[in-house]
């Protein structure tokens, strides 16, 4: 039951002097169980695309299909899409507002019209999923927490709606290294437990660690799509687009330019093995 984008396009403020096309001609199928990373320069349309996945934005051209149904057919279909597809915005902690962590996380399930018992169970589950201790912080104000914890409260608020598809816009932006690792572990676990994840990110090292597929947007159009190994091997093309490349890919590219025999790799473990072979084992290729 994938998400299918059919020739999707979005133009902001049509007919006004500020008319601007953010994305166009995007056809993409997001399969169940993927962890798809959406990368691109600022202004390439990543966030606009992400906001179509749960009908927050309505396409100006093309369609978004969920389980074969156009999600923008009616208000009811839009609302249904929002329960199936959970969107976590950039800096979601700016949107926390309730008096307690428990109430904040329960906001979505309450809107779904669930019973109080069901809401309580879901809030507990969601807090477990992101590693927030229910008894210790559940009754605190979200504003007393650290930045990393606030980010996880916001994530739990979306998870409590039990979405099948989770869309994360820059989930680690502004977090310290420890909080970032913690959050990425959450994402990795949710994915391994069956949630389809779409992650918008500038952090190529995060993308390299997690993604099963990378989609690159350039000036609102789909420029590249493929497994991370294939995408990150194109160091020069990505750099020309103003994008970062994982440090390991940069190293592999640089070493090959030196005439050394290093396979195309992007993960730290692969590079360790490759360098071990080169420097200890077989005959190095000395020019």
């Amino acid at each position, binding site marked *: 039951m994938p998400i299918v984008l059919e020739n999707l396009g979005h133009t902001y403020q049509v007919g006004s002097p500020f008319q601007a096309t953010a994305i166009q001609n995007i056809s993409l199928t997001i399969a169940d169980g993927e962890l798809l990373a959406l990368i691109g320069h600022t202004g390439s349309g990543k966030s606009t695309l992400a906001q179509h996945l749960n009908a927050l934005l309505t396409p100006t051209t093309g369609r978004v299909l969920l389980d074969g149904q156009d999600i923008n057919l009616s208000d009811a279909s839009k609302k249904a899409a929002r329960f199936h597809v959970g969107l976590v915005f950039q800096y979601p902690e700016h949107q926390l507002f309730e008096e307690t962590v428990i109430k904040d996380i329960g906001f979505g399930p309450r809107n779904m019209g669930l019973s109080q018992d069901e809401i309580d169970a879901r809030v507990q589950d969601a807090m477990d999923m992101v590693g927030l201790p229910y008894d210790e912080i559940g009754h605190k104000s979200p504003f007393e927490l650290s930045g*990393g914890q606030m980010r996880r409260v916001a994530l739990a608020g979306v998870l409590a709606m039990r979405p099948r598809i989770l869309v994360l816009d820059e989930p680690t932006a502004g977090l*310290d290294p420890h909080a970032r690792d913690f959050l990425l572990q959450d994402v990795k676990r949710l994915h391994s437990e069956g949630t389809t994840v779409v992650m918008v990110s500038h952090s190529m090292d995060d993308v390299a660690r997690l993604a099963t597929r990378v989609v690159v947007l350039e000036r609102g159009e789909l420029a590249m799509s493929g497994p991370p190994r294939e995408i990150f091997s194109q160091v020069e093309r990505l750099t020309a687009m103003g994008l970062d490349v994982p*440090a390991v890919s940069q*190293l592999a590219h640089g*070493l090959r330019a030196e005439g050394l025999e290093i396979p195309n790799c992007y993960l730290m473990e692969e590079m360790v093995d490759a*360098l071990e072979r080169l420097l*200890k084992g077989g005959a190095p290729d000395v020019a």
Partner: protein
Amino acid sequence: MAGPFHLQLDHVTYQYEQGGKTAVKDMSLAIPRGQFVALLGHNGSGKSTVAKLLNGLFTPTVGTVQVSGMDTADPKFVWEIRRRAGMVFQNPDNQIVATQVRDDVAFGLENIGVPSAEMPERIERALSDVNMLEFADRAPHLLSGGQKQRIAIAGILAMEPEALILDEATAMLDPSGRKDVLETVRRLNTEKQITVVWITHFMQEATQADRVIVMHEGSAVMDGTPREVFAQADMIRGYRLDVPPMTKLAETLRSRGIALSGDILSVDDMIGEVRRLAHRA
């Protein structure tokens, strides 16, 4: 009266209100003029408090802070210290006050009473120092995050400061915006000998500094060149930070018996070292 040090903390403790959290504990620190210092630490380690102590936004509960020999707790120095030690914050959108870039840069000058005849020249010089002169008549809210941060820096430069304190100024920027802002500040540091205190969560940015200071629980726990500090990977991790990816790779290779020499911080360092070893093998 200005001692050898430009920015100086002498046994400083800072407590948020009576009985509140002690954010900085008996910390002493001396930064010479023209040094580029990266200040690292996990959230809550006290680094933002130090930033605010350095330009007199906060005054110490115990101890003294001096900027060019001026005590930040002495009310008569307040404006002079803020002019000399300018601060850039994390969120570019919270730092914009005007509808035109030029007016935004003028804001600080008006505050310190610069005669209006002098303003245009200072504004244009400051904008040209951050490579934003061509945007002088544009609306700041339509610029990218990196451009907005460079406008914020220009607003400080127009006041002819001696130090720049940047509190996670790149945290909300994309990779190219981060690179632009860091390059701009690095250049101002070399060309104008402006002292820089650069607070960041990006370890790779800290490798560009002259000196790295790591804070933990309100104290400076590590202090040295980037190579010295990042060579102690286990200690860094103990303070809930990380080492740059290439330093991590070097560490793993050493643990597998590959004798990499030197302290590796960047991809270029690693390429050089692998080339040396491969051609010797």
